[in-house]
């Protein structure tokens, strides 16, 4: 008997205006990507509380991706900038928890970039497939006040 191949589970946080629309575009163009990629819609990436990311890892995600409007295109002026800043800080915390930075990506996807969306998540899945499942899961309560 062989072990079933490891298939990483991914949570993506996408802003409503650009990246989620980009995912819709990937759909309309029928650009396939791995099945264990799940998207959570927020109005803006500025809404993404770092604790959502920790929560995702705690609940079983092997990778997280945050997709924002390109710089200057955020529907709310600068939420993407805030998300980027928070992502940088979060990477440091994740490192301390033993979660490598390759598992938490930040990228920009516009409403037109369906191909890019599929490429970004496809690449993430490929890397994590190679890296294997998350070795240690953070405590559920981390990130909560």
């Amino acid at each position, binding site marked *: 008997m062989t072990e079933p191949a490891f298939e990483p*589970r991914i*949570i993506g946080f996408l802003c*409503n205006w650009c990246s*989620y*629309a980009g*995912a*819709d575009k*990937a*759909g*309309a163009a*029928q*650009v*396939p*990507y791995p*099945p*264990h990629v*799940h*998207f*959570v*819609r*927020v*109005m*803006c990436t*500025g*809404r*993404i*509380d*770092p*604790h*959502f990311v920790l*929560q*995702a890892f705690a*609940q*079983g*995600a092997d990778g997280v991706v945050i997709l924002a409007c390109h710089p200057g295109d955020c*529907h*709310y*002026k*600068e*939420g993407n900038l*805030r998300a980027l800043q*928070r992502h940088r800080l979060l990477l440091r915390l994740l490192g301390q928890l033993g979660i490598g930075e390759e598992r938490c990506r930040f990228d920009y996807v516009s409403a037109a970039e369906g191909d890019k969306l*599929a490429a970004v998540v496809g690449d993430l899945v490929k890397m994590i497939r190679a890296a294997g499942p998350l070795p240690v899961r953070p405590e559920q309560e981390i990130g909560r*006040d």
Partner: protein
Amino acid sequence: MRIGVYFCRCGGIISEKIREEAVRAGLAAVAADLHVAAFDFLCSEEGKGFLAQDLREHGVERVVIGACSPREHESTFRRVLTGAGLNPFLLQMANVREQIAWVTDGEGEATAKAVRYLRAAVRRVSLHQPLLKKEIAVCPEVLVIGGGPAGLKAALTIAQAGRKAIVVEKSPIIGGLPVRYEELFPTLECGPCMLEPVLDEVLHGEAAANIELLTLAEVTGLKGFYGNFTATIRRRPRYVDGTACIGCLQCAEACPASAANPFNYGLSERKAISVPFDGALPNVPFIEPGLCLHLSGEECRACREACPLEGTIRLDEGEELLELQAGAVVVATGAGLYDSRAIPGLGHGILPGVHTAAEFERLLAANGPTGGELAIGAGEGPGTVAIVHCVGSLDPAHREYCSGICCQVAFKFNQLIRKKVPGTRIVHLFREIVVAGKEDSFLYHQARQDEDTVFCRYPEIGALGIRLEDGRMVIEIRHQGGTETIAADLVVLCPAVVPAEGSGELASLLETPLDRWGFFEEMHGRVDPVQSKVKGIYLAGSCQGPMDIRQAMGQGLAAAGAILSRLVPGRRLELPPITAVVAADRCSGCGVCQGLCPFKAMTFDPERRVAAVSEVLCQGCGTCVAACPAGAITGNHFTDAAITAEIEALLS
């Protein structure tokens, strides 16, 4: 709580990939009281009818729809919920078409993912709160800052709709820069003839009663928000009663004091009491307090004595501070020209024969300092005029953009010089020539075909040097291969269009951002080109960037249209409920949210020492929610609880 899950087959598009029966089975244990149904096209009239009826029949309290993207049909289904007596926010869509059926290889995988998406939606929707749209009363009046073409067009359009517009103009006259120009591109139409009817309409037309014109006035403060602004306005005295004055100008004749006239760029003198130039509107003189002998403490009353209407000249008038209400604001403060003295080699302000385009317009105008007489050359044969394009434009050391109107102005000058002083040699010195648009190449072609007009490209503005030699201007053009010289009697500089003086102060007072060049920034330059970044503050004309009269008028009209369609008397302002909400008892008053909010929607209540959200200004991005260290801010509809439940269910 009964949750209804509706699976849209999308006419087979979804159900070919996602097996309906397996979905039903997968949902079985998710919630205690679940009602599952499927339909072919839920978004069709038939589908919506089915949904509304089924919701009622089965007493459904929360709704999950597994179908296409919420970006496509969320509002459609929210309306169905409303029609069925449910709060529209008790809905969650699972995007099983775009994010599953169309992108997943294999039926088994697609079906399993759809089950995860639908379970997450069920978990999430059970945590939704009913949300209500709030409504507030609005003030329908509109404050227009700036009385140039854009501002007046906006005010007039608003007034013609029977609405009140208040125009605040800082100079004593209206019409902006173009009233100083005698002829306008692209058709050499007479400027005053084109603009005066508009100005007359503002002053005396049918809708004039709806326009309150405040000249010599400036906005000094703006409080409040869309629908309910309060503006403070400082109005300097004119010292002349505009309602009584007949414009005979006997006062100006009698006035003994005079100085350089800034409306003619100092090329002529004006009296302490005067009009800027003949034909300026309103045709009521004003006193420049710095020049007036009486106001400087001397005994003079010459103007009052000369005035045929007693009581019209009011030397004791003082400054006024006004407070006005408005529901919306239009910024139409215009633009200025790049200061060509910043390019010292050009000699502007030093050499007598070097003028800017604005000065040259006055030299061409019949109501200008020379009465429209143009003197070129010393009289022996025809003279030469050099017109320098791109002064400060297309140059990272100055302004990197092309203003798009200067070439037109330059070719207009070509025609006017030709008309006034036939035989004049005209040299166009340029970096690039830009004349786009259906009417706009006419003047350019005329210049190109003209025998006495030559074109000369210069490499960059720093390569030009102008000096005075034997009473003529000598222009040196330093090309890579050598230096070329051109002698001219008159040099006209066409500088880049830049933000008007005082734009920075006005922007900080209105809390409306400027772009990197200092122009007022639009919400979206193409999709929302008259809305500023602040709700309720609109933009029109060259305060947004270089613009000609046609574009400025268009922007004024558009701003008025946007306001008339959004700010309607009697109609209350609907506030979308997806906003942030502060729990005052958890807020520590740290102020983090205030610094982050891009819409200035977070304020600080100094009495209770807590943050407060303006529901009018909040756009619901959630940036403050994620940042609050005390977890005191809730993002309506995107609560921590709802999002974490969704994550958990997607991974279970």
